[in-house]
């Protein structure tokens, strides 16, 4: 019996309250502080694997690829298609983990908060709590996240994302579930492996890995989307409001 299996069995037998499959670390790594996206040299052990295209079911994948082509063509014409940010709408989860702005993590034994500087977005991960049923979570921009430490890996489960809050413009159903595994690959490089599960649209789970590096002493700057002079015209094209 491996140590992890033994610990899991002890957890169930002695306490009877541990979440199935979790092994609580006595001294989990401290992730508190500021982080920013990191891309190391190709092939370096700290560089995450390349991002695969979403394994969408065939008709959906065709539509998704057609939208990518339409966006590139619109950009080339100088008429980019307006998106949520044009209306000052934050990206939500999991896109907020993409950056590009820094975020900070505040960690306690019962909760971990991740605050993305762009749009002052915050997600809260409740440690040691069970996940609710889909029907008991009202959909939102960040969903409901619960987590546990499995040895030195923070394992997070998130459900309850609004249908129009999408990652990479990939559609999803109300049954979207995102599982994350956050762990330090070096003392100052953090990986977040996100696996999206949604049998309604995906042929198989889709895993994307982001890497971040610590930014010592950086203090997150406030961000209020106060006045975007870019706007969407009646055709949905991004324009700039000028002053005379």
């Amino acid at each position, binding site marked *: 019996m491996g140590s992890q299996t033994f610990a899991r069995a002890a957890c169930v037998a002695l306490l009877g309250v541990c979440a199935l499959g979790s092994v609580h670390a006595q001294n989990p790594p401290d992730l508190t502080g500021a982080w*920013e*996206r*990191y*891309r190391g040299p190709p092939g370096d052990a700290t560089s995450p694997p390349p991002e695969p295209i979403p394994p969408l079911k065939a008709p959906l994948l065709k539509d998704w690829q057609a939208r*990518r082509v339409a*966006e*590139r063509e*619109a*950009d*080339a*014409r*100088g*008429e*980019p298609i307006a998106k949520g*940010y044009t209306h*000052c709408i934050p*990206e939500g989860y999991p*896109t907020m983990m*993409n*950056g*590009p*702005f*820094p975020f900070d993590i505040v960690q306690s034994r019962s909760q971990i908060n991740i605050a993305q*500087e*762009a749009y002052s977005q915050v997600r809260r991960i409740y440690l040691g709590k069970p996940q609710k049923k889909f029907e008991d979570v009202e959909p939102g921009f960040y969903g409901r996240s619960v987590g546990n430490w499995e040895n030195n890996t923070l394992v997070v489960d998130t459900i309850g994302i609004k249908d129009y809050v999408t990652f*990479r413009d990939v559609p999803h159903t109300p049954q979207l579930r995102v599982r994350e595994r956050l762990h330090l690959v070096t003392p100052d490089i953090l990986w977040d492996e996100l696996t999206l599960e949604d049998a309604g649209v995906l042929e198989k789970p889709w895993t994307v890995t982001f890497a971040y590096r610590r930014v010592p002493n950086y203090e997150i*700057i406030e*961000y*209020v*989307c*106060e*006045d*975007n*002079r*870019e706007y969407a015209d009646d055709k949905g094209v*991004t*324009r*700039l409001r*000028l*002053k*005379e």
Partner: protein
Amino acid sequence: MKRAIGWMAAGTLAVGAVGTAWAHHSFAIFDHTQTYTLKGKVKSFQWTNPHGYIDLDVKDGPPGIDHFTLEMTSINMLQRAGWKSSDVHPGDEVTAIVAPLATGDKGGLLLELRMKDGRTLVPPVPAIDTFKRSP
């Protein structure tokens, strides 16, 4: 003094590496093939997100331009690059290098701002080298 990309250089490069498709903002509305050099007086300096703006009364520039709106990056990016909200004031005489709107309207993306006191302020525009400078 040329105040420009310091700590955020890595972040800016990272944004470029993401590719414009997944950046959270597109600069595709701006012409990447030419720049204007505009001399004039600052009418207003708007320190807001998601972008800062300067409205400029133009004294010397391409024919027919007497006013121009300059968009900048997020003020968070500006702060990380060393900018302050007190760097520019209404009435300042400046020279601006801008990538104009692709539509030809009187607005553009600020690439460089030269102040009368000798300072040169550079917004940390992602992939700034993709904007071809006119002579």
